[in-house]
């Protein structure tokens, strides 16, 4: 009985794993369309994925706030406040770059990237999930 259930589980699991692998393969193969500015496309992709990471970090922090030290909670709240203006700065720099090819897009992205790395490191250090993992939904 148990082996039949395990076999059924494996049968169901195999297409699911293959599907997930195919999806990861699809995403990793995404190239830039000819004629598109890679800096614009990649910055937009970065903006698209960064605020959900912020959301996940804050959701996780809220769920686990009661077990956090005052220092860790202070760090979470500093990140909570710092992220939105930094995100808007990247978006604004991107609009300037799109309009006239100038602006500090790379500098702004670097600053936001550092903050995201801090968020992921903090959550991981506090025993939370790996927010930057590909498997993380």
């Amino acid at each position, binding site marked *: 009985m148990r082996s039949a259930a395990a076999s059924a589980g494996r049968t169901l699991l195999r297409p699911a794993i293959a599907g997930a692998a195919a999806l990861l393969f699809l995403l990793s193969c995404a*190239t*830039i369309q000819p004629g598109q500015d890679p800096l614009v496309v990649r910055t937009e992709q970065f903006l698209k994925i960064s605020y959900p990471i912020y959301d996940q970090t804050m959701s996780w922090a809220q769920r686990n706030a009661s077990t956090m030290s005052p220092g860790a*909670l202070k760090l979470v709240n500093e990140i909570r406040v710092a992220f*939105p203006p930094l995100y808007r700065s990247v978006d604004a720099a991107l609009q300037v770059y799109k309009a006239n090819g100038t602006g500090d897009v790379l500098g702004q992205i670097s600053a936001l990237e550092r903050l995201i790395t801090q968020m992921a490191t903090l959550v991981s250090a506090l025993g939370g999930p790996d927010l930057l993992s590909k498997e993380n939904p």
Partner: protein
Amino acid sequence: MNPLLLVVLGQVLDIALKAVVRDPKQGDVFTPIIGAIVPALSQAAGETAAETAARRSAAEATFSKWAAPIV
């Protein structure tokens, strides 16, 4: 890319993926086909104005959600 061609490529990709999932031994035949189609289907392009507006709106909603301190 021509939308009709996209549909045809999508159908071929679907058949190839299903074939490989059903019988991994057929991977030798179908993997090169999948490898050729996927990059053509997944080329990244810039956001449209509507997509940018939607992203900003969603981001701002997220920021509003976390406006209060976490205690």
